[in-house]
């Protein structure tokens, strides 16, 4: 990954610099017009969050059952990134909904699930920070439960609230929008890879620092 870091960084930077133009160029959606453009970074942010959650869950399981310390670092990094991108989605979503639905917030399946996953992974970070000894394992359990909770929350909220305004949430993408959307998704995914790399490196350096301290005091 270190070898690829600079090229990937360059491509991502270029894509992010070009993204405003690509998004501005994309055709207007017929009913929501301008505000629909939030879509181009709102949905990719959720893609990143879900990828991060699954990485966090699976690597947590690897840590728990195989005792691989590096897997724990990956899970931690992914959890933190999931919270950051979840916050992005949770803030941009209501801004879009205000215009498209007329309300800031709807208790529909997707929104509720997003809020809950955000809560679970904030819990993960909190227990990591303040949980004391053994918190890595507890947070790993949290990540696994968080990952497995996805279908349950989705199903239960879907039955609880079946008023999802389907017309506005997933617009059938026209050819121009399609390109712009996947452009954004790829840009966000590359960014995710870069952030993961940096964040995992931070954890590895921290572990190395701990080892140094241990080596100093026999």
């Amino acid at each position, binding site marked *: 990954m270190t070898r690829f870091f600079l090229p990937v960084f360059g491509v991502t930077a270029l894509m992010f610099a070009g993204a405003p133009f690509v998004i501005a160029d994309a055709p207007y959606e017929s009913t929501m017009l301008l505000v629909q453009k939030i879509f181009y970074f709102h949905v990719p942010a959720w893609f990143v969050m879900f990828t991060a959650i699954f990485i966090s869950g699976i690597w947590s399981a690897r840590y728990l059952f195989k005792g691989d310390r590096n897997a724990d670092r990956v899970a931690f990094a992914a959890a933190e990134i999931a919270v950051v991108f979840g916050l992005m989605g949770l803030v941009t979503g209501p*801004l879009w909904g205000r215009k498209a639905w007329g309300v800031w917030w709807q208790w529909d399946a997707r929104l509720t699930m997003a809020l809950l996953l955000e809560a679970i992974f904030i819990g993960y970070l909190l227990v990591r920070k303040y949980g004391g000894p053994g918190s890595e394992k507890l947070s790993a359990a949290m990540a696994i439960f968080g990952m497995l909770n996805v279908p349950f929350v989705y199903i239960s909220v879907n039955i609880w609230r079946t008023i999802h305004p389907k017309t506005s949430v997933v617009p059938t993408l026209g050819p121009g929008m399609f390109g712009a959307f996947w452009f954004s998704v790829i840009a966000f995914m590359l960014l995710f890879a870069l952030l993961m790399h940096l964040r995992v490196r931070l954890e590895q350096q921290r572990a190395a620092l701990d080892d140094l301290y241990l080596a100093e005091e026999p």
Partner: protein
Amino acid sequence: MTMLKKLSVLFLTVLLTGAPLLASQPPGGAATDGFVPLDSLPPQEQLPAAPLLVTAYAFVWVLLMAYIWSIASRLRKVEAEMATLQRRTPGAAGR
């Protein structure tokens, strides 16, 4: 802690700068106030979209920049600490 603090400060800043932006929108009649059932809204609500879009865009950029900056500063701190430690105990580096 520092990271959480930074994030919360950032969040508040965006909220505080975003609120006047949103507040400056011309009120589009009673329909835009508070929670209104979906079906009672007029089909083309006259709520300007630009401030919403700009706020969303600005938030994403500021959050990303802040997060990258936070990772970088934490990394710098850890590496600086490692350097001092290695200077203090030259033997430990080789171990």
